[in-house]
């Protein structure tokens, strides 16, 4: 492929689909030293790639996933899959990250539980899961491990690194750690310094897990463990990804089917319960269902469903490790100041924040860009008006697509 053929078209073609994809495992046989000083004799990263690496090996776009994400960001594993990868709307032929032009790489983070080495991986010394014997993981460890994967794939430099939330932290860390390797950074809905509020939410989640009697200090069999604690952690965290407005629009005060309206909020035709209603099957008997702690509101049912699906795919210890990695992320403390942190950055940056994101508010995203600019770097900042909260970065938005496409074309 020569340079002329690599020119990007001005009008994007009709978007297509990545289609069937399969995960791969990169097994690194070399010892890996974590920031904590702990080591592993080697590690595994599960990853997927879409598109083709060009002859110059410089068209790779690395996608960094968030806390509960994984390597499967686009396409499907089987025709029967109910849902495609988590960022399928964003990645594919003709999409914002165009797989006709870019070689897209996404890997599960170190410390994760979707195929990469983490606390649920078998400890070669015991044959049982590592549990808390797994080394502490930082965002920088995740990035350093992924660099080894990029080297393994023969990538000579990254055309761009893209990610939201915890993925955005990795993006910034990439630009700092490997300045000559990273040409563009797209951090979305993120922060350079985990706030007290975000740490507080993480701590509540961890306490829910660690107070579950099934946790056993992290020593539980695969598939077992603190399912209740993990479910509660997920329910609570999920609220922080939404917004008051979006929850009101999506659920309002709607009831799940079969739950009667309690009296007081009743329509004029209904009446006060009387002794005659007791034990009867008249509508008033539904009133008793309203005075239980079973699911009544749609929002409760939604959170329980989210929790249920999460505990079937996520490991509680990984949740502890990764939330701790988020807590420890503080580029200001690590480098003295944010300007110093970014002093060596060579990449151009496009930062995008979302007005309704209260977990990583726009001010924290602005601070990243202002520090990059003060450090003399090229950094653009845009803000999208959405009502969907922190999860906005994942949602379908033509404005976001155009912006990212425009930035990647330059």
């Amino acid at each position, binding site marked *: 492929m020569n340079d002329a053929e690599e020119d990007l078209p001005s009008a994007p073609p009709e978007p297509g689909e990545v289609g069937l994809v399969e995960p791969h495992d990169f097994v690194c046989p070399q010892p890996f030293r974590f920031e904590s000083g702990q080591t592993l004799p080697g590690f595994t990263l599960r990853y997927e790639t879409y598109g083709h690496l060009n002859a110059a090996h410089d068209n790779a776009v690395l996608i960094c996933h968030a806390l509960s994400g994984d390597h499967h960001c686009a396409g499907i594993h089987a025709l029967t899959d109910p849902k495609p990868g988590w960022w399928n709307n964003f990645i594919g032929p003709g999409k914002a990250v165009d797989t006709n032009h870019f070689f897209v790489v996404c890997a599960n983070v170190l410390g994760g539980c979707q195929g990469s080495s983490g606390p649920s991986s078998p400890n070669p010394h015991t044959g049982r899961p590592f549990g808390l014997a797994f080394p502490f993981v930082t965002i920088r460890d995740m990035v350093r491990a992924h660099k080894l994967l990029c080297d393994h794939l023969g990538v000579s430099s990254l055309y761009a690194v893209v990610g939201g939330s915890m993925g955005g932290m990795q993006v910034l860390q990439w630009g700092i750690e490997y300045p000559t390797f990273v040409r563009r950074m797209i951090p979305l809905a993120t922060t350079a310094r985990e706030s007290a509020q975000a740490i507080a939410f993480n701590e509540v989640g961890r306490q829910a897990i660690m107070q579950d009697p099934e946790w056993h200090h992290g020593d539980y069999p695969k598939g077992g463990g603190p399912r209740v604690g993990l479910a509660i952690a997920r329910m609570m965290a999920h609220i922080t990804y939404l917004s008051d407005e979006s929850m009101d629009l999506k659920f309002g005060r709607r009831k799940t089917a079969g739950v009667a309206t309690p009296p007081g909020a009743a329509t004029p035709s209904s009446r006060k319960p009387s002794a005659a209603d007791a034990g009867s099957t008249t509508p008033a008997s539904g009133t008793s269902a309203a005075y239980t702690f079973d699911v009544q509101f749609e929002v409760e049912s939604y959170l329980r469903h989210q929790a249920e699906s999460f505990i079937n795919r996520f490991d509680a210890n990984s949740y502890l490790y990764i939330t701790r990695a988020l807590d420890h992320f503080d580029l200001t403390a690590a480098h003295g100041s944010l300007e110093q942190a970014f002093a060596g950055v060579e990449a151009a940056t496009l930062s995008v924040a979302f007005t309704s994101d209260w977990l990583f508010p726009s001010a924290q995203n*602005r601070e990243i*860009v202002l520090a990059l*600019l*003060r450090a003399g770097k090229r*950094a*653009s*900042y*845009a*803000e999208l008006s959405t009502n969907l909260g922190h999860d906005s970065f994942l949602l379908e938005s033509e404005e976001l697509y155009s912006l990212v496409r425009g930035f990647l074309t*330059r």
Partner: protein
Amino acid sequence: MSKLVEKRTVDMQIIGDWVEPASRVLDLGCGRGVLLDYLQQTKQARGLGVDLDFQKILGCVRRGVTAYQGDMEAFMRAFPDRFFDRVICSRTVQELADPAAVILEALRVGRALTVGFVNHGFWKNRADALFRGRKPRNPVYTTEWFESRPANPVTIDDFERFCAAKGIGISRRALLRGDWHTPCTFRPNLFSGYALYDLAR
């Protein structure tokens, strides 16, 4: 329309002449980044734009112009003194609620400040008000009053009085006639259609 595009180019050429090669330029109210793109192409300027509107930032990013979406005053407060070689405020002052605050802050973060504006003291604009009794409308300000642009019209006399009152030095000025091309030397507040100033503290 083509006349308007031509006028825009004249404005850009003068600003381009004033910009030192490879300097760090901040454009307040950068729009879609046309001016910065021009300065990057012709002067190898290191440009940065600020605008409130997402679509403008999108236009800049597509052009390869670095841009920041947000309030220009809050943006400038985040920078140390004399961080930029030049700040440009081209056809922006007439939209500002507190132009003095913006101009003084721009003179703090910039070594020089270029301000360009349509002179509302130009005789045609006065005639609009005098004979038609209506808000001036011309090829630049095409809108009715209820569409509300400009918000805070300025004349050459207004601007020079402001500079004198604040002790702001005018190092260069380009006052152009109604064609926005020929220099205007006689009673510019009445006969100049467009004014460009280069300021320093």
